[in-house]
């Protein structure tokens, strides 16, 4: 019974993670522009 009560929330949490993963990994991506963009910005500047 205890195992069931553990597994069920884990199942729901796993699904939430699965769905939100693309959003989470996007947040983790580097915020700084790519080097090429930086270079072009520098030129303009």
């Amino acid at each position, binding site marked *: 019974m205890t195992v*069931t009560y553990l597994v*069920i929330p884990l199942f*729901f949490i796993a*699904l939430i993670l*699965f*769905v939100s*993963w*693309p*959003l989470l*990994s996007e947040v983790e991506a580097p915020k700084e522009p790519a080097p090429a963009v930086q270079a072009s910005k520098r030129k303009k500047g």
Partner: protein
Amino acid sequence: MIEFGHYSLVFAWAMSLFAIAALWFSRRRPTALRKSGYRAVVASFILIATASLALLVLLVRHDFRVEYVAAYTSRDLPLTYVLTAFWGGQSGSLLLWTLLLAVFAVIVLVQNRNKHEDSLPYVAAVIVGVQHFFLSVILFAANPFETLQQVPLDGRGLNPLLQNFFMVIHPPFLYLGYVAFTVPFAFAIASLALKKRDAEWTTLSRRWTLVSWIFLTAGILLGAYWAYIELGWGGYWAWDPVENASLMPWLAATAYLHSVMVEQREGIFKRWNFALMFLTFELCIFGTFLTRSGIVSSVHAFADSNMGPLFLTFIGTSAALSLVLLLSRREETSGERAMTSLISRESAFFLVNLLFLALTLAVMWGTMYPAFASAANGEKVSISAPFFNRTTWPLALAVLLLIALGPWLKWRNVDLLALRRVLIVPGLAALATAAVLLVAGIRQPIALAFFTAAAFVIVSLLVDIVRNSRSEARSSDTNVVSGFAQQVWTRKRHYGAVLAHLGVAVAFIGILGSSSFSHEYDLHLKKGQRVSFAKREAELVDFAEHREVNKDVVYARIRLFEQGRVLGEVRPEKHFHFKFEQPQTEIAVSSSLARDLYVVLLGWEDDGSVTVRINENPLIAFLWLGGLMILAGSVYVLFRSSKTAAVAPKVEARAEETVEEVKA
């Protein structure tokens, strides 16, 4: 397990809401949000599947704490029916609906992955939107995980009428049909939302439409067959509101299947096709609603419930939104050209469309009138078979005639002289059929008209097959049989349709034969004594009873004779289920292509004599045969390989040319 099932549904509800929002806000460009939206579609499928599995486990475990399990199963119910009780009741059947839709949503995502990136968010959002509505109905009006205050020792059991193989498979087939129409509907909405001018949505959803139609057809036929062998009144179609509820979307979808070909070939009927697809979808939802609302009385409607307003709001809103969308895209949906000739293939298709639409409206009016009358002045009216027969026969007859003309009408313009020439043989065959029937003493005008029309259709289609086979044989220097085989292989779409249309004519022979010439005989039989009826005899061989797990069975073994020789033995039964007061009649049938002898055990005396009713249903086997031909033909159209798809128009054009040559 109860909580697990319930919360899976709650999570699925939230997940599908998130999917709709994510797909809507990411509709313009592919972002992480869109990806997350797609994942939410998959996750809601997993959750709905989990809830369904939980319900199945509860059913198998006889967990009578759950109201649904207690209401539709019992400890003595065989396992097959315990499992099929999943869709035996209101809330379970809604869960099956939602599960199927969730499966389809995932299939659509997988099929179109990395393709159609502009329209897929819309398609997925519409499907999940419908899914969200059904989850709302389940959670707020018909929850299969509702528990009871007092737990009974045993459940009420499944209605004995539903304990039948065909009832096991009929609802899933029907639901597959109903549910799958959501997919082409979603493609249509996506196309309008994106202001597309082409007919891409029709090609993308072609298989979905066909598959839905095939399942709906199979579901209706299985339901009719179940009614025939289980309800014991000798017929298969009673124009019951729930039967009509499945017929209406079928009629609208049939119209769509025909008119969409005109759009793909000629670029016309665009707006019309959108409208037909919307109508089909709304009628599918309406059918689901009609069965559950309790607004019409029917032998197999679910009990009264409070979900009527929910369904009506959904139907009203979705129909209004789709219509507004269609009207706002007037320019994009205008035809590429106008219809040029009144007598042409496209005008025939248009006429077929109008006829199917008229049939749909007639059935709808007959089904809904009692509800309207009751709402208007409290009057109790029931509309029975004569109304439906009177209104649908003429329209159906016109459809049959158009099927016969179909193969001979060319696109854009028809050479009337050539048309007259090719119709001589089918016309003569039809006249000959009418003459033979008149000589045989058949005077019923409707039967005469339909048999004649059926002969016209069959011969017309056979002439088409022979001509095409001959021209193929000539062009590829082979014999007619190989020519025929080659044609059947290369022109799958055409020959699938030919087989389905032949099936329609054959089915009408069955419908008319059984409805116009059936006879009913009530016989009192004593053991060892032969009793005559309609040039046949019946003899009671044995009358006995025995006890089974959940019922007492009383049966009579009856031997039937025709012209002195034994036709066979039948065993009609009466079942007395321990859990149900009403005894149930199990009919027995002695079947042949020419007629069915349908035997019902009416009663018995203390001296061991029995009373049986024998219905003679001529030609009814043709209905089932025709139904199978329609299904087989449609499935054949479906298995059209992409290779033949590419060459088919050319082959068809060549075939048309050769037919022209032959005509000349």
